[in-house]
């Protein structure tokens, strides 16, 4: 009898452990960026406001504290990662978008929403790039501003043409948004179904032009070309508010 039990036990453990794995699925986070409805391509000129053409070179941001929501409970997905569109140099790449390389394992089930953070949460923002290996999203020295004691949460770099000569050499737009004050969190009510052993892709879309909204118009990028002063966060706060509001999630 004991022999039979010993023979059955490993089989039982194997089956139950397989069962546990099968109860999980994965979530993939995918991002699309547009500008005024068109695919966002770096070094392509776009109309900004009357008489101003804009050409983007960088659009990137930290994504943090991602959780799936269900009946008021949270399932953690991601602590921190970095999303960049800087290498998108043609429309096909733009339409394909950017997907985080990791698929995050979560319990299978029907969720009713997702929460994401835009930027680096205060706890992590108290660290600095040299605390991390280069492979870590927070290890990028290009995105740590010492004078601010903060990471650059969102970086939008562009050049503008204001004299219609076709050259975007009339000024730069350097919207670097950082510091705890500009961190934003967004909760989206969205049915998200994660099936056992399957991957669910959640796509976030943002129209970059919306990040420049200012009332009924758009920010004056000639008068206010950068957000480099940590003591003057008005534009940075506005850009991050716009970012939070512009972000659309869908499964």
């Amino acid at each position, binding site marked *: 009898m004991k022999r039979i039990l010993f023979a059955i036990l490993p089989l039982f453990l194997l089956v139950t452990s397989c069962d546990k794995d099968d109860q999980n699925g994965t979530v993939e986070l995918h991002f699309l960026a547009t500008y005024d409805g068109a695919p966002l391509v770096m070094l392509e000129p776009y109309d900004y406001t009357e008489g101003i053409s804009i050409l983007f070179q960088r659009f990137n941001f930290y994504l943090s504290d991602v959780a799936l929501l269900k009946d008021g409970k949270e399932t953690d997905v991601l602590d921190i990662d970095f999303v960049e569109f800087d290498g998108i140099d043609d429309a096909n790449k733009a339409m394909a978008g950017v997907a985080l390389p990791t698929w995050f394992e979560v319990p299978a089930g029907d969720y009713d929403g997702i929460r994401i953070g835009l930027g680096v949460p205060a706890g992590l923002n108290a660290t600095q790039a040299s605390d991390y*290996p280069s492979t870590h999203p927070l290890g990028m020295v290009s995105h740590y501003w010492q004078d601010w004691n903060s990471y650059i949460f969102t970086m939008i770099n562009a050049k503008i043409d204001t004299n219609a000569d076709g050259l975007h050499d009339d000024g730069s737009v350097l919207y670097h948004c950082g510091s705890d004050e500009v961190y934003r969190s967004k909760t989206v009510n969205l049915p998200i179904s994660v099936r056992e052993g399957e991957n669910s892709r959640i796509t976030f879309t943002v129209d970059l032009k919306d990040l420049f909204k200012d009332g009924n118009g758009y920010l004056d990028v000639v008068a206010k070309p950068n957000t480099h002063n940590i003591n003057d966060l008005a534009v940075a706060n506005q850009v991050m508010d716009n970012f939070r509001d512009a972000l659309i999630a869908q499964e």
Partner: protein
Amino acid sequence: MQRTFYLFALLSGLSFFYACQDDDMPEPPVTTKGDLEDIPYEPEPYDLQVPPGFPPLEIPQDNPLTVDGIELGRFLFYDPILSSDSTQSCSSCHLPVGSFTDNLPTSPGVLGIHGKRSAMSLLNAAFFTNGLFWDGRSTTLEAQALLPVEDPVEMNNTWEVVIERLQAHAEYPAMFRRAFGILDSDEISRELAAKAIAQFERIMVSTGQSKYDRRFLYLDPTVEFTDQEFRGFDMFFDVADSPLPDAQCFHCHNAPLFTTNGYFNNGLQEAATLDDFEDLGRGAVTGAKIDNGKFRAPTLRNIALTAPYMHDGRLQTLEEVIDFYNEGVHFADNLDENLVVPLGLSEQQKQDVIAFLHTLTDTSFVHNPMLSNPF
């Protein structure tokens, strides 16, 4: 005749038997002893000291730092045995006095032909985690160390020749044994040579004795910056609420390494379109037009020791460099966006930035005996 038949049958049977045995039996133990086995292999880990505030060292698991590995790498680095005519070593283009540059615009190889780019400083190469060379074509120090030997404008040799020389050398086989535990000279390989050179290059780390490091990393209260150095600091890092202009330096040369390890078009080359750069730089590696004309941002640590400047060494002095960024940048669609508008620095402000750059000089590094020529 019958006797011959039986003998033939016996031999055939024996052949069959032994042939079957060969398939089924393990190889007989090697009885030949390696020519290096009597030399002890006792690897001693090397504890590399890094200044505070530096990022964590990323050392490949298959090439840990050891005392003997570094020593072998030091000999190989300084030994002209690597070049075809035994006249040039790695140190021919990377001399300690120039913070491991040769202070030339471009360097002549063994054939007298100059490469098209300047020798980069190896200071803090252990932290170059986003590609090596001006265009980032090698991803690791180990991979980088393989290339100059066979480059016709550098050492113009083959690794086969180098390995033959090393195997026949009076000292190197024992050094490879002590560094990597090989049993026989036959096991000396280009990969092991590159690993040793990489180990040596990996210890070329700042000593933390520059004025900047003592003031800001070690917080040494006895080290005072002058007013001019502080003004340069403010402009270099675009300190908030400073009345001084942003010199736009730190975006590509951020502390603590004074490089972000990124690739940028800094406006050095004039080009009508992105296809027209004389040297495509990073774009030739990635194949992306958006990367054409971009080059690695070098470290500014020890920048005062590494003239001439830029990827082709066209600028002779730091004054010329600041003048170039102040008013000489060529526009292109992928020109770094921080450099579009002229900096507008006054003569005094330019001198202030240069004064700050001099605080990054680490003479203890260039005089470090661990990094000196062993011959």
